[in-house]
């Protein structure tokens, strides 16, 4: 069997499914970055922990170095200053650590200071035999003073300090109270105290009596002082004073004697010398000599004191040194000078107050917005007189000058009323001001303002008069002020004269208004003046011109009609319903004739003898004159 055609059999192979990468590298890279990030986080956390530790150490050091002292806080508290931020170092690790260490330092210092104060108080109380309740109050007050000063900056530390020092204070107070009860502190009775006080109070007068004896010498004075000191000690001892209390009274007596010597010399004796007219005893000379141990004055008691101070043996009495004596005299002298200066200052101050009072009276008077009354003038004169007595000549001159002006002519107030100024300004702005209206405000405007507004009123009226004159010029139809009467002809002369008369009427009215202070409005009165003048109006002039023009046109028409049979002229081509129309028609005919060169150019119906005559006289001038004549007769001009 012969082979037959066998078509191609497909192997059935299509495109395989693609087996692409699954992105494992990217997944691993993600894990890598996660690991790296975690590692860096751990390292950063470690570094921050280290930095925090360092900040704590630095803050602690800073707090110690910058902690405020107890003295600073106490002083600030006394001065009433705000110390709430003294222990604020910021809300950071550094700041918190600094605050903690500063508080520790402050606590230690406050405890040391408080302990010292309590010990001092107890010691002083023991020395002065202070009653226990008084000491207790002193201790409590001291503790509160310290703790309150700290409480302003740190309330918790204030409380701690207060409680600790209170505990300590209680212990010290208890020991003192026990000792006081056992009598280890010296005591004096009420009677003894009174005796000693009376003795000490009388001591200065006793010493003055000794110094005032006529036969007193430095040596005798020294002996008497020693006796006084000894009798004082006996007085103290016999009145129950012992140990530290006695020592205290002896010191008090020594101090009284020393102060007596100083005061006796300065206030009672030395005053005689500095008031002495003799220039040799000037204060400076006396002071220098006292420092050297010399007394050059005339007072015998002062001399005894200085000589006594120059003695080598003063018998154990505590006396001032020469330098102290000189200083005391100087201080006394300075204080007297200061007192004198104060008196002068006070006098000046009173003088200034009085001046202000008088100036206020004057200002109130001169600021009035109505004319001054007789009472005002009298009060002002009284105030000026007082200023003169106090020698304020500048103010006296100023106010006297003002008063004289106002009292001579008191029709003007010293100051302008605000309302009046506003109203006058409004009238000026509106162009309505005049002499009559301005006079209405005379009592409400100061002289200066009135004069100013008067000038402005004149200017305003001048402007309006110029406008009124312009109206006259318009009415008369000519600028008559720039014209010469001789150059005018016919009616114009008559109109010129009428205009001059109208202007004179206007100016007369203005002058009268200014003279009598009456109201006037130039723009208003010019209307009646123009009416009275009865100026010829432009329309009337035109109508006159129309009559003249019509005469001419009628003459021309008559001439044309004479030639009508030959030329066929029709009158209706020129003659209109009105005169204006007739003139207008004739003007329309001749308007373009100006450039004609010969009579042949003129239409045949118009070749009248007169027209031909115009060619002989000069065509252009004649025809233009005719055209102007026609134009003047028409409303369009």
């Amino acid at each position, binding site marked *: 069997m012969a082979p037959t055609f*066998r078509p191609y059999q497909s*192997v059935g192979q299509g495109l395989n499914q693609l087996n692409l990468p699954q992105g494992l590298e990217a997944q*691993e890279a993600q894990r890598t970055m996660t690991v790296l990030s975690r590692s860096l986080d751990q*390292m950063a956390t470690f570094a921050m922990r280290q930095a925090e530790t360092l900040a704590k150490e630095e803050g602690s050091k800073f707090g110690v170095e910058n902690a405020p002292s107890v003295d600073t806080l106490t002083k600030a508290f006394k001065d009433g200053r705000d110390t709430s931020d003294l222990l604020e170092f910021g809300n950071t690790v550094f700041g918190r650590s600094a605050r903690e260490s500063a508080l520790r330092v402050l606590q230690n210092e406050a405890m040391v200071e408080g302990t010292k104060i309590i010990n001092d108080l107890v010691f002083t109380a023991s020395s002065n035999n202070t009653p226990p309740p008084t000491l207790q109050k002193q201790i409590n007050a001291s503790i509160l003073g310290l703790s309150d000063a700290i409480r302003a900056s740190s309330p918790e530390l204030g409380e701690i300090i207060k409680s600790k020092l209170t505990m300590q204070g209680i212990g010290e107070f208890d020991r003192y109270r026990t000792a006081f009860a056992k009598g280890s502190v010296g005591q004096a009775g009420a009677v003894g105290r009174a005796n000693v006080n009376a003795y000490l109070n009388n001591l200065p007068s006793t010493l003055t009596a000794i110094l005032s004896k006529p036969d007193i010498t430095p040596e005798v004075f020294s002996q008497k002082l020693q006796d006084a000191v000894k009798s004082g000690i006996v007085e103290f001892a016999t009145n129950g004073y012992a140990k530290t209390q006695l020592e205290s009274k002896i010191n008090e007596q020594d101090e009284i004697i020393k102060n007596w010597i100083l005061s006796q010399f300065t206030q009672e004796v030395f005053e005689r010398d500095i008031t002495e007219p003799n220039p040799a005893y000037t204060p400076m000379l006396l002071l220098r000599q006292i420092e050297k141990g010399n007394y050059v004055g005339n007072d015998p008691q002062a001399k005894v004191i200085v000589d006594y101070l120059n003695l080598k043996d003063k018998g154990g009495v505590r006396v001032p040194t020469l330098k102290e004596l000189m200083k005391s005299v100087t201080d006394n002298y300075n204080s007297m000078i200061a007192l004198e200066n104060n008196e002068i200052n006070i006098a000046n101050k009173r003088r200034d107050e009085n001046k202000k009072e008088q100036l206020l009276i004057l200002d109130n008077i001169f600021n009035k917005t109505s004319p001054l009354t007789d009472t005002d003038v009298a009060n002002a004169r009284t105030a000026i007189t007082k200023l003169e007595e106090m020698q304020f000549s500048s103010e006296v001159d100023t106010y006297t000058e003002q008063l004289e002006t106002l009292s001579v002519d008191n029709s003007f107030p010293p100051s302008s009323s605000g309302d009046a100024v506003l109203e006058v300004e409004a009238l000026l702005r509106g162009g309505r001001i005049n002499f009559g209206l301005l006079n209405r405000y005379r009592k409400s405007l100061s002289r200066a303002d009135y004069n100013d507004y008067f000038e402005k009123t004149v200017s305003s009226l001048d402007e309006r008069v110029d406008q009124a004159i312009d109206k006259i010029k318009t009415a008369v139809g000519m600028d008559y002020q720039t014209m010469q009467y001789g150059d005018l002809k016919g009616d114009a002369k008559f109109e010129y004269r009428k205009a001059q008369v109208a202007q004179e009427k206007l100016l007369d009215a203005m002058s009268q208004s200014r003279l009598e202070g009456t109201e006037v409005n130039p723009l208003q009165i010019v209307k009646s003046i123009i009416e009275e003048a009865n100026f010829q109006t432009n329309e009337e002039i035109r109508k006159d011109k129309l009559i003249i023009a019509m005469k001419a046109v009628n003459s021309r028409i008559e001439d044309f009609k004479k030639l009508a049979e030959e030329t066929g002229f029709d009158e209706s081509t020129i003659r209109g319903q009105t005169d204006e129309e007739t003139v207008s028609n004739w003007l329309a005919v001749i308007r373009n004739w100006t450039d004609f060169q010969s009579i042949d150019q003129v239409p045949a119906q118009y070749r009248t003898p007169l027209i031909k005559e115009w060619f002989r006289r000069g065509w252009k001038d004649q025809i233009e004159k005719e055209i102007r004549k026609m134009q003047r007769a028409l409303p369009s001009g």
Partner: protein
Amino acid sequence: MAFVAPALTAIGGSTAMTAVSVGLSAMSALGQLSAGEKAKEAYDQRARNEELRGRVEAVNAKKKGVEVLKRTNASLASIIAGAGRQGLTLRSGTVRDREVFLVGRPASEDFSDTAFNASMALMTADMRASDLRGAGEQARMQGQIGAFSTLAGAFTNAMTIGSPGLTQSGNLRL
């Protein structure tokens, strides 16, 4: 690694416990390095397998191509042989149509598919292998980073513990 020298100095002056801690951390770091290397080896092995599998697929596709050519030859031979009996000249239009539309076109489509499959098998295998090798590199890097982090933590901790003679140098100088 600038911190290693002072850290080693610090360890030299530290207690035995500190030294033991640092030693253990060093071993941990070595372990992490080794783990990374092993992971990389595993990925490399998978990459090689993928390349081999790709070549096998390519050979199979080529074999299919040979089969296509064989069937084409047989069909063309049947056209030539049957033409005379059917009264057709070899250059006639009918014979040409059979050669082109019934044999040439479907055969060439089959052959191009097999050739495409072979080339894509090789290319995709190469891509997968490359991906796996990249993943291996990343795994090794993870091990290195972990080891570095462990060592750095251990040394810095050891430095902060301190010991006489180092952190107290100021006092000793006095």
